[in-house]
C-alpha cells in the first residue's frame, strides 16, 4: 500500500515546517507531497530546505485546485491511498492510521475525520458549528450520506476516488461538495472521530465576511451535484 499525504499550502511559513517534521516523525512510511499554491511568503524556501516533495503552482488556484493537483500526482504515480492534511497544524498525524485503515480494509473509498463525534479538542466557534450542521443536514437530505463534519479537510481517499478527483474536483470551498461528488460516483463513505487542534499559524480560509457567500455557494453546489 503506497500512501501519499497531500498538504495544500498557501502562505504557511509559520507552520509548514512543524507539520512536515511531525509527519515525518509519526508516519515515516508515507510519502509527503506539499502543494505550494503560489505562496507569497517564505513557504517555497522552507519546502526546498526541508527537501520535501512538492508541486509549485505558478498561479494561485485556491484550495480546490491545489488539492486536485495533488490527486493528479497521486494518480500519475500510482498511489493506493491519498490523504489530505492541512498545513496549519490543525490535523494531528497520529490519526493517519485510523483514517487509512477503512480504505486498506476495503470498507470505504472516502474516510473523513470528524471532530464532532467524540467532541474532543478544538471545536471552532458556535456560528461555524451551526453552519457545519446545516451543511451536514443538506448533504444527508440530498444524497443520504450521514456526516457530522462536512467541512473537514482531513480525509483519506482510495485509488478509485483518486482517479475521479484527479479528473474533476470542486473549486473554492470544495470539502462538502466533494463528499456529495463521491456519493454520486457510488463511493463508500465513512467518518471516523479525530481530535483537531487550534491552528498553529495562518488563518482560516473562511473569514467572517465570506461566510455568507460560502454558505450560499456550497449549498447551491451540493444541490447541483444531485441534479447532475
Amino acid at each position, binding site marked *: 500500500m503506497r500512501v501519499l499525504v497531500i498538504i495544500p499550502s498557501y502562505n504557511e511559513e509559520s507552520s509548514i515546517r512543524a507539520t512536515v517534521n511531525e509527519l515525518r516523525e509519526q508516519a515515516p512510511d508515507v510519502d509527503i507531497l506539499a502543494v505550494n499554491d503560489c505562496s507569497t511568503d517564505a513557504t517555497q524556501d522552507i519546502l526546498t530546505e526541508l527537501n520535501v516533495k512538492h*508541486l509549485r503552482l505558478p498561479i494561485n*488556484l485556491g484550495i480546490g485546485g491545489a488539492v486536485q493537483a495533488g490527486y493528479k500526482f497521486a494518480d500519475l504515480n500510482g498511489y493506493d491511498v491519498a490523504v489530505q492534511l492541512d498545513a496549519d497544524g490543525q490535523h494531528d498525524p497520529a490519526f493517519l492510521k485510523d483514517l487509512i485503515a477503512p480504505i486498506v480494509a476495503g470498507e470505504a473509498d472516502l474516510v473523513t475525520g470528524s471532530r464532532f463525534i467524540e467532541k474532543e479538542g478544538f471545536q471552532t466557534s458556535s456560528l461555524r458549528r451551526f453552519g457545519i450542521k446545516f451543511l451536514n443536514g443538506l448533504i444527508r437530505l440530498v444524497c443520504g450520506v450521514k456526516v457530522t463534519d462536512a467541512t473537514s479537510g482531513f480525509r483519506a481517499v482510495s485509488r478509485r476516488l483518486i482517479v475521479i478527483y484527479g479528473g474533476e474536483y470542486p473549486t473554492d470551498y470544495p470539502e462538502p461538495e466533494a463528499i456529495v461528488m463521491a456519493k454520486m460516483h457510488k463511493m463508500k463513505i465513512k467518518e471516523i472521530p479525530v481530535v483537531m487542534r487550534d491552528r498553529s499559524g495562518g488563518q482560516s480560509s473562511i473569514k467572517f465576511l465570506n461566510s455568507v457567500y460560502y454558505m450560499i455557494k456550497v449549498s447551491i453546489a451540493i444541490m447541483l451535484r444531485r441534479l447532475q
Partner: protein
Amino acid sequence: MSLTLQISMIVAELVYFAMIFYFLRKKMLSIKYSLLWLVFGIVMIVFTSVPSLMWRFMWMFGVESPMNGLFSVLLFFILTIIMSLTAIVSRQSERIRALVQSQALLEERIRELEVKKDEH
C-alpha cells in the same frame, strides 16, 4: 419614429458595425464570438430602417410603446451576451486550472529527473 431619430440611430449602428469589423480585421475579436454581436446589429438595422416592421413585431408581443419594446430587445441582447461571456470565462478558468496543474506536475518531474541525473 421621427426621421431625425431614425437617421441618428442608423448612424449609430454604422459606427457599431465599423467597430466590429475593425476588431475582426485586427484579430482582436474572434469570429465565433462576434456572431452574436453581428446578429444583434442586423436586427437593429432592420428595425430602424423599416419601422413599420418593428411596430408590428412589438404589437405581436403585447408591447404598447414601441420605444420601450426596443429598449427591452436591447436589454435582452445585452443580457444574452453577458451570460455567454460568463460561460466563456468559466470555461477559460477551468482550462487555465488544468494547464497550471499539468505545468506544476511537469516542473516537479523535471526537478526529480535533474536530481537523478546528478546522482549518476
